[in-house]
């Protein structure tokens, strides 16, 4: 027990130096070297495709198709990125649509999901666990299967090829995640705070709104960022529900670039990088909650 109170390092030397430290094992040092090399190899393999795509986006068209491939020796150019943002770019409108769809669907999922998560966290409801599990299991449905009836439904409702239709689908798609993620955050806020506020004369709703809500802001922000990323990256619903070039989102616009007989890989690479960078920035902002985020709020550590 006492060793835990001792400052770091002292414990290794034994209490009052009575025991001699065991001789350092040689194999351990060698093992550590191998570990570092292995880790470095994994790192190179994992990062190479990203670096390669960035390089491709920065090369001029002749260097892209050079054989053997030019890894370092090329003159960087921003031409492809200029093409992405130019007025006759085939993908620029897609980016605008993606921002609209991701933004609104996140807003709807948050507005509907946070109160629901609070209710699930605070109240004793009938078969609460089953309800929560049911909600999460809707998220596991294969998108290609769900899109068949949604397609027919949207055809009847004239929602095909429209942004509001896609916004609704993404809201429903993000809602299970928002509820689960937020329930975790709300469970961490003691219910006693609300009870104390209610003793002071607040109603239950006011206690939620004025006491708990301000404490949830960071959690809501993190949850919303994940919902943004999921909507932004989603691909299957977007290609099936929208085919109109004016309303399609960035993923289907970018996928459209490889449809023709000749592919402008420079433009594809620049579009893909432009598409990926915001996600990486956002993901970096919420890295503390990444485990909960990528498991749809199911695993919390």
């Amino acid at each position, binding site marked *: 027990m006492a060793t835990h109170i001792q400052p770091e390092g002292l414990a290794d030397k034994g209490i009052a130096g009575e025991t001699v430290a065991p001789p350092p094992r040689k194999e351990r040092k060698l093992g550590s070297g191998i570990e570092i090399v292995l880790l470095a190899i994994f790192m190179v393999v994992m990062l190479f495709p990203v670096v390669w795509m960035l390089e491709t986006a920065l090369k001029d068209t002749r260097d892209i198709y050079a054989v053997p491939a030019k890894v370092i020796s090329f003159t960087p150019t921003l031409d492809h990125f200029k093409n992405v943002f130019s007025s006759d770019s085939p993908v620029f409108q897609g980016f605008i649509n993606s921002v609209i769809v991701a933004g609104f669907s996140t807003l709807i999922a948050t507005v509907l999901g946070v109160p*629901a998560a609070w*209710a699930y966290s605070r109240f004793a409801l009938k078969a609460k666990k089953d309800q929560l599990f049911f909600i999460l299991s*809707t998220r596991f449905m294969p998108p*290609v*299967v769900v899109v068949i009836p949604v397609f027919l439904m949207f055809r009847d409702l004239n929602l095909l090829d429209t942004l509001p239709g896609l916004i609704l689908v993404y809201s429903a798609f993000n809602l*299970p995640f928002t509820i689960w993620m937020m329930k975790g955050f709300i469970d961490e806020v003691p219910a006693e705070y609300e009870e104390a506020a209610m003793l002071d004369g607040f109603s239950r709703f006011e206690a939620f709104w004025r006491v708990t809500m301000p404490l949830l802001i960071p959690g809501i922000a993190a949850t919303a960022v994940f919902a943004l990323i999921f909507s932004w990256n989603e691909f299957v619903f977007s290609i099936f529900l929208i085919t109109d070039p004016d309303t399609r989102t960035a993923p289907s616009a970018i*996928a459209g670039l490889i449809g023709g007989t000749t592919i402008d890989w420079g433009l594809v690479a620049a579009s893909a990088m432009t598409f990926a960078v915001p996600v990486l920035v956002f993901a970096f902002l919420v890295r503390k909650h990444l485990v909960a985020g990528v498991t749809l709020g199911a695993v919390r550590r």
Partner: protein
Amino acid sequence: MANTLQTPPQNAPQAQTLEAPPAARRFAFLTDRKLALLFILPAFALLLFLSIWPLLWLLGLSFTDYSATRDSGYEFIAFDNYVTVLTSEVVHARALTTLIFVVGAVGLQTILGFTIAFLISRRIKGRGAITTLFLIPMMLSPIVVGLFWKFMLDVQFGVVNSFLDSLGFGRVEWLTQQRLALFSLVIVDTWQWTPFIMLIALAGLTAVPKYLYEAAEIDRASEWFKFRRITFPLVWPLLLIAVMFRAIEAFRLFDLVYILTGGGPGGTTETLSFNVYKVAFFGFDTGLASAYGILMVIVVTIAAQFYLRYLNRLQER
């Protein structure tokens, strides 16, 4: 003794504080029950509209010979669609393809992801930065990942073949050669999702209490012993969660197939999801595709139930 007791203050201030309530009880009409309904129903309504109702519709369609492109009516044909799907040779082949893909990809991801997490957990310096860099592939959209790799695996000017060429090996048709195309899909999926397993395994590894290792150190336990008896048993439950999650997602794989191979060559990379898509949007046999879809939903639901029950048991511990 008695003099220690204070006399109560003469002009009692309690009455004042009790008078006006500090906050107006606005929204007091919302009882707990009403509030719960008000908060949960809108969320449920959206799910009902876009998740549950479509599935019921799908179920209904699966018993008919409805076609989305035909305006004429449709007939009720009971379980004919299900019989057709379940006895179809093509579906069996696609199911096998999907199974190979799920086992191959998730297996590789688990081994690699756990290895990387284990290596990272033994480092002290630069752990945060290393982890962040490793996580990049996972955050990318499947469309971006698919395009990255389609370009890199290109026969003529792909960088992979370029490397192989300069090393003296021949060029390889990664995405257009039978057998190899499915392997390429496994590789790409592994590239994207190894970080996922790694992230969760790392969460498990860092949660293993240090004193267990210290105790083992005192007993001069070998590294292997420590791994087998301390690290692995404690990380395993969390790792299993990650593996199940990945398996469900891999079963639904569609986007990578759509971008990388389009199901080819000769249908060898067609997963069940991709096959459903072809039946529904090229064959326009909506009824058949619905039955096909319902069967997939059943498989996913059973898998998801296993996953959620296990998760529940883990959380209650």
